[in-house]
């Protein structure tokens, strides 16, 4: 079978289309299917991350560089789990919470690229034994949620949030 559009081999997408009150099936190769906006095999989820990681490679690639003594940054390794920058580059995965502090210099530009931001503005986590400032931030977040619940007329939710705010205030030593 050949592609109906370009005559190339191995059509992988068979698209049913309606034209002039008739249905017919188009057999398309991956390229032509994509040209029609049908992605038989969509881009890998994190092609963006992969690209950014590859660029990161320039800075961390060689032992050669460090042996030459010209290296500006030694190869840091996470003191907790032992992950190296090279290891991160290979897998795209961090190994533990401490990695985020160890590699924060490298992570900020990366986050800017893949997330378009560096600063978290969502929920503030309150650990089981919070400090006063953590509690204050947390109250702020809860009030924001409460406003939203009222706006959405979700009164059940609003009541829950009010309870949460109340109990958090009460817990102040």
């Amino acid at each position, binding site marked *: 079978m050949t592609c109906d559009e370009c005559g190339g081999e191995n059509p992988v*997408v068979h698209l049913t289309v309606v034209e002039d009150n008739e249905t017919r099936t188009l057999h398309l190769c991956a390229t032509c299917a994509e040209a029609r*906006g049908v992605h038989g095999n969509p881009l890998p989820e994190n092609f963006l991350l992969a690209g950014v990681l590859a660029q990161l490679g320039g800075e961390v690639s060689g032992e050669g560089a460090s042996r030459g003594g010209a290296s500006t940054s030694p190869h840091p390794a996470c003191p907790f789990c032992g992950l190296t920058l090279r290891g991160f580059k290979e897998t795209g995965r961090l190994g533990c919470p401490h990695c985020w502090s160890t590699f924060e210099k490298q992570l900020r530009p990366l*986050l800017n690229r893949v997330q378009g931001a560096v600063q978290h503005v969502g*929920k503030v986590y309150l650990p089981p034994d919070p400090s006063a400032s953590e509690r204050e931030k947390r109250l702020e977040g809860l009030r924001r949620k409460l406003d939203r619940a009222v706006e959405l007329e979700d009164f059940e939710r609003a009541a829950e949030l009010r309870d949460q705010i109340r109990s958090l205030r009460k817990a102040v030593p």
Partner: protein
Amino acid sequence: MSDLSPGVADAGLHWLDASGEHADIVLSTRMRLARNLQGFAFGPRSRVNDRTAVLRRVRAAAETVQPLKGASVEELRALPPHRARLLLERRVISRELLGEGGHDSGGVGSPLSSGSSAGSSAGLSAGSSTGSSTGTSPESASLDASTLAAEGAAVVLPPASPVSVMVNEEDHLRLQVLVSGLDLHEAWNQIDLLDEELGQYLPYAFHPEFGFLTSCPTNVGTGLRASVLLHLPGLVLTKEIGKVLQGLSQVGLTFRGLFGEGSEVVGNFFQISNQTTLGKTEEDLVDQLDAMVRQVIQVELQARHRLLSHAGAVTEDKVWRGYGLLRYARSLSFEELMNLLSGVRLGVSLKLLPGLRVYALNKVMMFTQPAHLEEAAGRALSPAERDAHRAAYVRRILLDEGRVEGSTPASGTDPTPPPEEPAS
């Protein structure tokens, strides 16, 4: 369905009831939060000690935390492989948790079980993987492979609840919720509540600048991935789908068409989710996705309207042919079923097939997946047997639904009414 523990028995099935908004177009809304515990390595760096310690803590928390009350904690290694596959097909666990498929399931076989894979790093719902591989369709998935799950990999399944928690997947915890139709706010409320409670028992890894810390930088911050599974035959048939999807990617959403392996576009199902997790509040992420999905629904409805007015006879024929084949076929591959089901779903949505409920169609999608067929049969099935069992199940459901009367042609272009369906 005999000796399944209560958690396994109904996990991941709540959305089938089609009770949610726009349930004919939006199959389900799912959401997940990635969380990690302080003091333990995660992802590929985690060792057995880390994973078992995390699981121990989660077990303890599951006994106290209200939204998880009475939950069964199923360790993947202790779970018979066919049970694990049931959970996979229901999108309650991911391939990665199961220890197969590595980081990604790039291609997609079933819209239910593969790409979406339960908010794992795999697939769209989580989107935290760099690699890509050809996906495994449910047909080619080996059903009897013994589990390769890592020690400590587990899933927490509270009874009669749309929430669940994967333990020791790419992140220590993947909180997830799966509800019917378009209901991002309800999904968020449920998962937020679970998160708040669980976070009081388990010290999460949180950073003032980066937010909730995750193994993959694409999940950090809120750790939130929300996704909606849509049926968009109108946009596909009118060839507008490309434009729409392109538009979505410009506003920070990702989409994924669900396709079979090298053959027909399967079922016109698309999954849309947020691309980024950092720099926006959870509410903003949810609201934005909600607004965009509503727009997509509007253009889909317009496309369907155009189809009916410009190609009414063809559309109606497609719908009834699909119904006819499903009603009488003696053997159906999963792909063929999904394509026919797409036409029938469109027919139900356009009220061309009165008397047929979306619930029945959802059930067909779920219970004709390989592991579900085998569960019902109580034994392993060869591919040919599977196709026969699948067709038999579909016939039974459509028969139970009763008589589907032919309606008058919606378009008015066809003067002769469709012939009476010789039902039952």
